[in-house]
């Protein structure tokens, strides 16, 4: 449970980053002329849409991790090595990859740009154009659809979390990972809908750093799970799962 709480906090901290991009959308989505409750429904729907996408991505990543895990497991079953060890190897490989990805993403938050194209590729710009045309529409389906598409916007934070979800090697856990993270972004994003850009840029900058710190820590722990020797890793593993 602590694990998910940790992810929730990461999501909350990370949502300072969201203010920059998705917060703009939340503001643009704006209020509903039928009153505050309608506005609330509008924004909750938007966020549910977003959460669905995250959840889906998390489940997919978890499933993919699981597929790799079992695939490698059965293959080594045919081979010579001991089953449990190779299972560990697969899982550890995934953990290393996920950890490295998360560290790379975290470093982006500290201003280290890898390749700009990673986040603003062909798909991204197409999506943004699509989203822009949606903003002006009314009705309940719109914010939902908007949220769903919004969830697919390229975002280092989401990528990092998806990597984490993949390393859980389970559909449900992967899904829950993203749910926890997504829920973490709820408070800020909901507030953005009502409040607009109240937060000073300086504070947002701090928030982004904080988010980066969280992701970095998570990445390091995940990486540690992968590379620390089996016996020690076992202990860490227990701690991790206990956490």
């Amino acid at each position, binding site marked *: 449970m602590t694990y998910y709480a940790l992810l929730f906090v990461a999501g909350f901290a990370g949502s300072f980053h969201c203010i920059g991009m998705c917060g703009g959308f939340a503001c643009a989505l704006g209020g509903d002329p039928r009153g505050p409750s309608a506005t609330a429904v509008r924004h909750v729907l938007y966020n549910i849409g977003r959460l669905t996408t995250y959840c889906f991505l998390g489940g997919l990543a978890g499933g993919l991790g699981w597929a790799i895990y079992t695939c490698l497991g059965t293959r080594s079953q045919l081979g010579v090595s001991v089953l449990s060890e190779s299972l560990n190897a697969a899982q550890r490989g995934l953990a290393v990859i996920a950890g490295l990805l998360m560290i790379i993403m975290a470093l982006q938050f500290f201003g280290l740009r890898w390749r700009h194209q990673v986040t603003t590729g062909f798909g991204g710009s197409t999506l943004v154009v699509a989203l822009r045309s949606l903003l002006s*529409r009314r009705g309940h389906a719109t914010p939902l659809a908007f949220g769903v598409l919004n969830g697919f916007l390229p975002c280092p934070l989401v990528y990092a979390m998806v990597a984490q979800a993949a390393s859980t090697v389970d559909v449900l856990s992967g899904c829950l990972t993203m749910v926890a993270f997504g829920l973490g972004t709820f408070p800020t994003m909901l507030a953005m809908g009502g409040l607009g850009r109240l937060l000073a840029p300086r504070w947002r900058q701090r928030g982004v750093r904080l988010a980066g710190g969280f992701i970095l820590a998570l990445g390091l722990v995940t990486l540690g799970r992968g590379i620390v020797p089996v016996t020690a890793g076992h202990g860490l593993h227990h701690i991790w799962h206990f956490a």
Partner: protein
Amino acid sequence: MTAAPEALCRHCLLPLGRRGFARTVNGESCQFCCYGCCIAHQVKSGSGDASEAAWLLVRLGVGGFLSMNIMLFSLLVYSGAFTGADRGVLPTIQLLLWGLATPAVLILGEPFLRETWSQARGGRLSSSALIVLGSLAAYIYSTLAVFRLGGHLYFDTATMVLMLFTLGRYLEAAGRARASRDLAPLLAAESESATVLEGAEEHRRPVREVRAGMLIRVKPGERIPVDGLIVEGCSHTDDSVISGESRQIAKTVGGCVLAGSINLDGPLLIRSSGSGDESRWAQICRSVRDALRQSSRTQRIADRLVGAFVPVVLVLAGLTLAFWAQRLPLDQAMLAALSVLVVACPCAVGLAAPMAHSLGIGQLARHGCLVRSPGALEALAVTRLIAFDKTGTLTLGRPQLIDLASDGAGEDEVLSRLAGLERHSEHGLARAIAIAAGARGLDPIATEDVQIVPGRGLRGMVHGELVAAGSAALMSELGWQLPPALLERADVMAASGHSVVFIGWSEKGCAGRARAALSFDDAPLPEARATIEALRALGIRVTLLTGDHAGAAARVAATVGVDEWQAGLLPEAKRVALDQCRPRHGAVAMVGDGLNDGPGLASADVGIAVGSATDLARETADLVLPADGLWLLPWVVGRARAVRSTILANLAWAFGYNSLALTCAVLGLLQPILAAAVMAGSSLLVVLNSLRLERLPGPVYPSALQVSAAARPETERSRQRREIPHTWGDSSPRPET
């Protein structure tokens, strides 16, 4: 298909093809080549609450929401989250899945169903029929399973297949639109509007309503809509659409501007010199539009294959179902058949050629090179022999003073006397002499009583002394002495294929004598040698076919580095010579100036006209290079090859991948969702592979590469020539029609 002028897709500007359909957007009836383009166009142009674009996106988003939820729950079911103690919730989950899947199938499947229906009414089976059949089968089976039969549910398959195909088509459309970005300025001529100044008022008017004499205002950054003269203002323009060279040219009051060029930095007021739809730019637009509407042989074959493919796949899917139903439970067999349907969708095959074509044609057109048909581009790519016409193609087409040998007289005196004499002549050489004298700042010496000696030359009087210029025979007729040294030089000049002119005069009443011999030649284009070397580096044999005499042909051939030549050919003989080359070299191309080698250009597999002065609409060449655009030829060949290899790679990929995936699907090795994902991925890959053409480098003028020092001063001259294109008539602002 339709021959209407609107036969291009509204969004991506590619031909409509087999999947074409009409839809009303913002109250305007638009034609689209595919559903993806329809979505993308509406997203791009949609504005306001009423736009259907937003509604489509909502459809996509809500469909996504539903199908992602379905997928998630299905994944959870598959991964065994609801086993053991949680088993009791399973029926509820199943009902929930059904409740989510029904609207999802309706929302996402409707466009495919509509497309299938409209095609079926036309008696055709389209690839969307495969998708509709596949996903409906999965949905109906799963619905029966929920309420009656029990067993596995495949709602996730049904919705994800639809979702992935919708997404794939959308991305494909976005890619196609990007591919046609190059074409946009070329196709804009007809829809462009001009700011017409009428009295004190300014009106926006369509270009086709602009008549000669109207005043047009052009802001900086705008495209100049019509040919004309500048009345007010000065600026720089970029004529690359017309001339092929992207350079800034300074323009001021009185200067000509060409339609299609971009006004870079100052506001201009232009007096139109012709109606808007007669400008070369408008002609280029029509030409490009025509080219796009045609399909090459490769594409026709691909289209026919796709057309034959769909029924075959249906049969194959039926067989797969029948085969597996005997060995596996029905749902497994159905899944295998479904994979067959989904994976066989031949979207990528239909996309392989048109995108690469439009990219190629667009990029060439942006540098002023017009392709008349995609087929010409493909033919050029396989051409191994290019035949050149000499005069006006490899040479300037205007004689120039090459050499001057004098005997007892200063060169300046010779030239000014000659210029004075030749001022009274209409002969081609007269102009060359005037230019040569002008270049040295010499004034022609006033000459009186000039007479033309037919077939020999000219004679006249300067201050009472006789002066004559012409052949050696003229000198002998006058009884003038020809110094042996001069005669020897003249023989050398004549032997190398030059025209030789002697000049002589009498002094102080004594008998005159020849004082100088001048040689003239139609000089090779400065870039000809580099161009031919570049072509040879591309593995192309080069030959020269000319109607000129052998000496001139040999000299030009030697200067520009062509080994083979045939001289003294009449136009008809050129055609025969090309036919003789064909068995040995396959496809042959012929390069000419488009004026006097029409038959040759028409009979070659690819006729290439350089700087065609004729009306583009009547042009017989398959490829038209801009005036002075010979240097672009190697680049054009490279581009044509790149387009062809991209198409072949696309087709190889699409067919190879389809057949491989189809085999897997028939063997029951492929999950339908995975099949849909790989099919969408395959289309996207074809799009991305074609977009790689965008990244190839543009043409480079060979002067940067040219090492031949001899050619350098001429390069300078040619540069000057380029900067004042209008004075030479090739690209006059208003083509003579």
